């Protein structure tokens, strides 16, 4: 275990955390402000990945693919909100879970009809592939550094929007007391549509960034969604700051667990015991962490409601 490896794994953890943050930010806003449990958030991530890959291949330009993919996901998100989710706000969480689970099935099958069930080809554009020499002999893929950069930029942008603009004020007010916001004459329906579209675009952004490194296939969103739920439970529902901290903690803990838990256990247990316990424990680590947070701070680390 040397320092270069630890530095590299820290970058890996940061990159995973940033990716989770992009998904968690949208989900936590929708949950906190609209009180809507949206299981279909992963479907929007998938839509973002597919649209970007499609437009990238159709136009030959990655930048154009990103713009069109992002805009497309925003439109899909807004249409979904107007058509399907509007009717669910007043209903209880079980109805929302059922309806948004239905949306998952709908989107997965729609994608399968349009592009087939097989994973489609997606790749990193040439100018973003390759490696960057960081300190010493630490070589890191450029594309993953770009992901970290985009994620941190979005975090700053979100912080600015939420804490420095009028829209952000409404979002914060909506998260702590929706009825009062509506009573003060704010068009809460419009606010909901904006927030949901915003969340969809963030999910789409995460999807388009992951397209070139993950398999772009129907159902890809559900694979990441569970970790995202862990993030918002740890961070505190409705809080963007909580989503950022939660995502970075989960990303770091998961990566470090996968990398170093087995060798660490081998120093105190027998090698064969470490062989069995290491991988099992590493995949449980983030859930254990969630359990601990729930036990000591059931509201999460940064609860938003007063």
């Amino acid at each position, binding site marked *: 275990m*040397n320092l270069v*490896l630890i530095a*590299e*794994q820290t970058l*890996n*953890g940061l*990159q*995973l955390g940033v990716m989770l943050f992009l998904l968690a930010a949208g989900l936590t806003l929708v949950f906190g402000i609209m009180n809507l449990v949206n299981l279909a958030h992963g479907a929007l991530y998938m839509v973002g990945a597919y649209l970007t890959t499609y437009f990238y291949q159709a136009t030959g330009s990655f930048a154009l693919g990103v713009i069109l993919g992002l805009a497309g996901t925003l439109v899909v998100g807004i249409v979904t909100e107007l058509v399907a989710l509007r009717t669910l706000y007043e209903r209880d969480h079980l109805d929302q879970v059922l309806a948004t689970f239905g949306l998952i099935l709908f989107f*997965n*099958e729609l994608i*399968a009809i349009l592009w*087939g*069930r*097989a*994973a*489609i*080809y*997606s*790749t*990193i554009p040439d100018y973003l*592939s390759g*490696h960057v020499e960081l300190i010493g002999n630490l*070589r890191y*893929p450029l*594309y*993953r550094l770009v992901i970290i950069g985009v994620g941190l930029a979005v975090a700053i942008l979100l912080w600015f929007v939420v804490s420095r603009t009028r829209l952000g004020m409404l979002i914060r007010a909506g998260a702590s007391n929706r009825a009062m916001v509506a009573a003060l004459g704010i068009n809460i329906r419009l606010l909901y549509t904006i927030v949901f579209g915003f969340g969809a675009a963030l999910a789409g952004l995460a999807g388009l960034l*992951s397209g*070139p*490194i*993950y*398999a*772009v*296939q*129907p*159902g*890809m969103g559900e*694979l*990441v969604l569970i970790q995202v739920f862990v993030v918002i439970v740890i961070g505190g529902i409705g809080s963007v700051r909580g989503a950022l901290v939660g995502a970075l903690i989960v990303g770091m803990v998961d*990566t470090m667990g*996968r*990398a170093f838990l087995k060798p660490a256990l081998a120093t105190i247990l027998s090698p064969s015991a470490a*062989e069995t316990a290491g*991988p*099992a424990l*590493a*995949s449980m680590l983030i859930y254990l962490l969630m359990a601990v947070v729930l036990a000591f701070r059931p509201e999460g680390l940064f609860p938003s409601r007063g």
Partner: protein
Amino acid sequence: MRKPLQYLVGGAIAAAFAFALPASAQQKLKIGFITTLSGPQGVIGEDMKNSVELALDHLGRKVGGLDTEIIYGDDQVKPDVGKQIAEEMLKKHQVNFVAGVIWSNVMLAVAPTVTQAGTFMIGTNAGPHQLAGEGCNELFFTTSWQNDQTPEAMGKYMQDAGIQDVYTISPNYAAGKDMITGFKRYFKGRIVDEVYTRLGQTDYQAELSQLRSKNPKAVFVFLPGGMGIQFLKQYSQAGLRGQFPLYSVYTVDELTIPAVKHAALGQYETRYWSQDLKNPANEKFVADYRKKYGGKTPSNYGAQSYDGILLIDSAVRAVKGNLADKKGMIAAMRKANFNSTRGKFTFNHNHFPIQNFYLLKAVSGPAGGDPVMETQKAVFTNHKDAYAKDCKMKW
């Protein structure tokens, strides 16, 4: 006079049909085909279904000379759903054969249900060791392989090639551990590290960083489906593709190559079948599959499903369509008397194939096309599985 004549002719035709119908209804062959048709893994089921349909085309839609009806069932990768579908096929549709099944855990639920009802089960993918050993059954045949055979072939190849210091990665579940067990049955060299990842894991960057720091001579992976796609992409993006040779089983195939393209180049796999095997049955299968399904190349999942239908055809033909003669059909199937896409093979006494295993390499395809799997050499000839000795069945 004209009108009565018309009635007479019409009546005669109707009567002919009326007599013909019950006779042919009795002679109808029903096959239930269970596979996965929904969700991300539906891509495997689609290839199997396509190949079954192609086999029917080649047989003039008559398996064993009988009118044939195929009932497809979607197991959703769930053992309980698979079992429920099998029961419905047996009771409601009264099928003569149940075939298919991709997953070993589904197979372990389906196969006993079918054979206990006195119906044939023709496995066309999953080969769990339980069914090859003590749980073998005279009504159960498989046209694929026993699970351990494929990694055994890779272990044998790497052992013979004198490759040392291997780093292994596989998902942390039953089949993932079986693959490494099978691999180590023949590979006796040093294993640098044995890494188990979460089933369905999407990001392998942490594992790849560890891998590079250990500096192995070769890497062996079993990461089927989507896991393999993301692993291959990330392996290539991390610049490891040229650095550490990658050997795999069930990871690079005709279903995953279109999603990774050049990231698969240079990759080694072992398999009992390849699209370029030179025998008339295979050449016809691959060419007609491409023609029927818009240039797509079939996978081994398809080849063994195609073989499954031909096996049924050979059995029904041998008993001249007398579907009640189960003893006769068992005897006929044991001969494996059909033109298999893998070439000539025989059945072991546990009804699992004794067959060759080849080393395949992903090489550049025709200009502008995807990479293709090319046969390099035979690793095993007439390879038997390790569990047949536990099977009490004799013939």
